[in-house]
């Protein structure tokens, strides 16, 4: 009897040691699977906004993701008048208005194609559509294109750094 409870105690004690080890190794496994510091650090891209032409959609690259940059024409701006959702997404640099967005469909992440005649984006994967400000025109995408964190620096746009304009977009729920 006494023997049994001794064995029981030993079993529990060593069980506890093993459990601590198991939890520790789970932490190590989780962290090993995390993105590497070098991946996280290589996160900034600077765009010179004077180089873009009206109505021509250019795809840039930031953190491996495509970034859509579209300098809006007067016609597009006219269409957007009175649409607060679209206006809230404008990025103003000097006198120009830009749409800058992560070019991945918010549904499952395909890259929608720009259609210059329609001034919109069509996602071939499941038929989603976005307008020239990046708002959803046709589901399944649950929300408009996400806007990458940016900071305006004269006529440059630094992607990956949080500026006041982006912060207020985020606070107002314009982007995630």
């Amino acid at each position: 009897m006494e023997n049994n409870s001794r064995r029981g105690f030993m079993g529990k004690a060593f069980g506890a040691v093993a459990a601590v080890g198991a939890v520790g190794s789970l932490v190590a496994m989780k962290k090993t699977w995390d993105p590497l510091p070098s991946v996280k650090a290589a996160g900034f891209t600077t765009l010179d906004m004077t180089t873009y032409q009206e109505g021509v959609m250019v795809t840039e690259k930031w953190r491996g993701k495509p970034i859509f940059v579209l300098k809006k024409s007067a016609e597009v701006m006219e269409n957007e008048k009175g649409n607060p959702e679209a206006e809230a997404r404008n990025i103003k640099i000097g006198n120009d208005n830009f749409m800058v967005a992560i070019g991945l469909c918010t549904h499952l992440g395909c890259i929608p194609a720009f259609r210059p005649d329609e001034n919109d984006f069509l996602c071939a994967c499941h038929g989603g559509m976005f307008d020239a400000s990046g708002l959803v025109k046709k589901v399944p995408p649950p929300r408009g294109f996400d806007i990458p964190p940016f900071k305006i620096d004269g006529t440059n746009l630094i992607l990956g750094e949080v500026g006041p304009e982006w912060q207020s977009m985020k606070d107002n729920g314009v982007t995630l």
Partner: protein
Amino acid sequence: MAHFTKATSVKDWLNQRLAIDKVEKVMASEYWIPKNINFLWAMGMVLVVTFVLLLVSGIFLLMYYVPTVDEAFYSVNYTIMREVDFGWLWRHIHGVAASVVFLVIYIHMFTGIYYGSYKKGREMIWISGMLLFVTFSAEAFSGYMLPWGQMSYWAGMVITNLFAGGSLHADGLVEWIRGDYVPAQAFLGRFFMLHVLLLPLAIVGLIGLHFAALRIPHVNNQDGEEIDFDAESKKYLDGDKAGSKVIRFANDFMSKDIMVVGIFLIFFFYLVFWNYSFALDPVNFDPADGLKTPAHIYPEWYFLWSYEILRPFNIDLGLILFGFAQVIFVFLPFLDRSPNTCPANRRGTMFKVWFWLMLSNMIILTAMGKLPPEGVFSTIGLVAAIVFVVQWLALPFITSREKKV
């Protein structure tokens, strides 16, 4: 035991140490198989053979494949396909087997459903089988990533995005799974590991469990008849081979299995040598490009039905129904409330209709999943997806009203 005598032969020497006589009886010569089963019961053996083909061809591919984003594509499409002598053969065997194995799994599954082989004491066979199906799916998906072509990259993008959970927007989780913001080196490396080590290990373990689950309740038969295996095997051993309802697995039943496997292999190697291209998507012959999506993204044919369930709905509902479709088959033994274990066609109209409707509906979903999501195809897909869900929800009700036959 632990009492050894001087061995009289090599066999005796081994017998004292490994009990090979006993093992042979348990696994083969006294493993009893009912007589009234048809060729559909040979699919298990067909799957074993296909799995071995995958393993062997995979080992040969592994020797030249390079798991880096810069070299993966060329190591497959140039080195293995052109430089390595017979490299093309291993790749075609691997590709064709990866596709055909799912065809056979589906036949195996629907055979089980048709004959009620998941019922009464055979639940664990069914559940372990469905776990195998899920693991095979993960194995197929991770393997699909490795050539690092356009479809690989974008399938990886789309499927990992599913883990964001729609409106939950768990981007952190997605980035953790990928080890990067987009599929890149970390992603390729870990999927390579999963494909060649962890998942195959799990598959081998699950195959063991699947077989163990079969050993005690024994295999079902064409009439769902309850056989007293002890009594019938005794009859057989006493010499009444004709009167007994069972036969030995080896070598009696094996001969039939091997015949079916033989026919299967002829068909299989016909595909490998003359029609391998069906298993290789043309889009995947472009190297991965993170800045260009192919016009249509679709998975391999065996995932199309569940992909189509995801497609017609908004993202949250789509995800929920997709998840539902992935797991619901596991619960089949518990959703089927009827006492009958017999072929679907003898279980009364309700289940008969349920079975054939489920089978045709999944074929329709598969076809719609391949077609572009436009116009009438979207509508058919939507209806079929709803029918699929409704059928599963209705199953407990229609089966509990079934009369005992």
